[in-house]
């Protein structure tokens, strides 16, 4: 609670900071994700000319030298190691019915993180990796996991690890529902909400690299590539679901249910515009 209030006042100070650069073009008349992604990436490349495209996946660490050093120190023996090991063990352990996670995924689940989320044409909706993992459990008679931490973080950590270095490869099939899901995600990202009237973009597009409280804001480009993350502030691991809900709460908004349609679409949008940037998860963060 206390930290939310600190955060809020810092956020207001940040809002007062003349936010300079114009955000990437928002309102194209006809939706054109490919053009969106190009404009989006160009915006960040122009804003941070010294960075290579792949550097953006390191969130705040590529934007500040003192923090980069602390990160390198952490990566010598990263705090997500235990979670990664646990995920590997869980992944290879069969369910009670003898089947395993590998049976639910293409290529037995190895090296496929970069293809998630995808648009499922039967369901007509976006399917994220976290959702697919729980569906796999339920289909095999196991109880679903909490979406935000522990087991879910461990499983996605392992799956991300097997995809390290593979560029995000999110597809938007030629299906009006897929395009709509993408547009919904984008709208969610740019819509102001919460008591502080911030959109996700206010922080992660307009002010990346700025300090808010002690934190350096991560750029929206590559913002999901390192997921799941071990955050020192959490003292543990968190998934994409956990990060989305936390950001909603911090701006005094009402978080949605993990894996609600809006969050699934949001993840679809954010992943798509980071196409081409390598998966680097699991990650470590302040």
């Amino acid at each position, binding site marked *: 609670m*206390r*930290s939310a209030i600190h955060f809020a006042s810092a956020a207001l100070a940040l809002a007062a900071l003349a936010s300079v650069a114009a955000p990437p073009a928002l309102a194209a008349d006809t939706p054109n994700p490919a053009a969106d992604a190009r404009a989006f990436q160009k915006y960040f490349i122009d804003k941070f000319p010294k960075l290579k495209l792949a550097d953006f996946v390191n969130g705040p660490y590529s934007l500040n030298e*003192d*923090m980069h*050093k*602390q*990160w390198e*120190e*952490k990566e010598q023996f990263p*705090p997500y190691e235990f979670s990664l090991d646990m995920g590997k063990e869980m992944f290879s352990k069969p369910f009670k019915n003898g089947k395993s996670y590998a049976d639910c995924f293409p290529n037995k689940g190895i090296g496929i993180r970069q293809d998630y989320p995808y648009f499922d044409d039967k369901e007509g909706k976006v399917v994220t990796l976290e959702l697919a993992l729980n569906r796999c459990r339920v289909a095999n008679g196991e109880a679903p996991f909490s979406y935000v931490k522990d087991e879910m973080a461990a499983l996605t950590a392992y799956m991300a690890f097997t995809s390290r270095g593979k560029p995000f490869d999110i597809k938007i099939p030629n299906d009006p529902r897929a395009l709509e899901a993408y547009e919904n995600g984008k709208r969610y990202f740019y819509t102001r909400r919460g008591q502080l009237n911030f959109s996700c973009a206010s922080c992660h597009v307009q002010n990346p690299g700025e300090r808010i*409280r*002690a*934190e350096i804001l991560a750029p929206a480009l590559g913002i999901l590539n390192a997921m799941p993350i071990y955050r*020192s*502030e959490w*003292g543990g691991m968190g998934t994409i679901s956990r990060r989305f809900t936390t950001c909603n709460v911090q701006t005094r908004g009402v978080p949605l249910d993990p894996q609600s349609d809006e969050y699934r679409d949001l993840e679809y949008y954010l992943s798509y515009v980071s196409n081409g940037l390598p998966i680097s998860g699991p990650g470590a963060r*302040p």
Partner: protein
Amino acid sequence: MTITDNGFTATRRLVLQGAGLVILVGLGNIPLGVAPALAAANDKYPEDAFKQKGEADAIKSLYGKTAEPSDKVKLDAPEIAENGAVVPISLTTTLADVTSISFLVSENPNALAASYQIPPGTVPAVANRLKMAKTSNVIAIVEAGGKLYSATREVKVTVGGCGG
């Protein structure tokens, strides 16, 4: 997170010992019950030094003497800790005959954070990660040839490591 000034004296109660073991069973696979034979560590755990509040008392309790600053002690710490719960701190020294290295955080409830014994043949350098409750001096002590040498650096903390 709420900071209280309750020290860690309570731990010695047997009740808590029992509770701790239950939790560890949950974590799984930790050999329980029997205290391990820390055969080689004939030096006792410096319990009193860890209970002292300020750094001067902690150093006195640990070593029974005071330290003088030395530029042969190189203390490396971030200017601004990304998070007080995990502050990377390391030390190297060109001093000879080093027998121990200690780290203290002045503003922590108990200043002494860690103390390392350096037997002959071990390189006098160590890296570790410490908690800092707030902006504070970090003091490194090197015991060499029976004398104490120190280095001090301020680390700014905006997100406190009260939790850890």
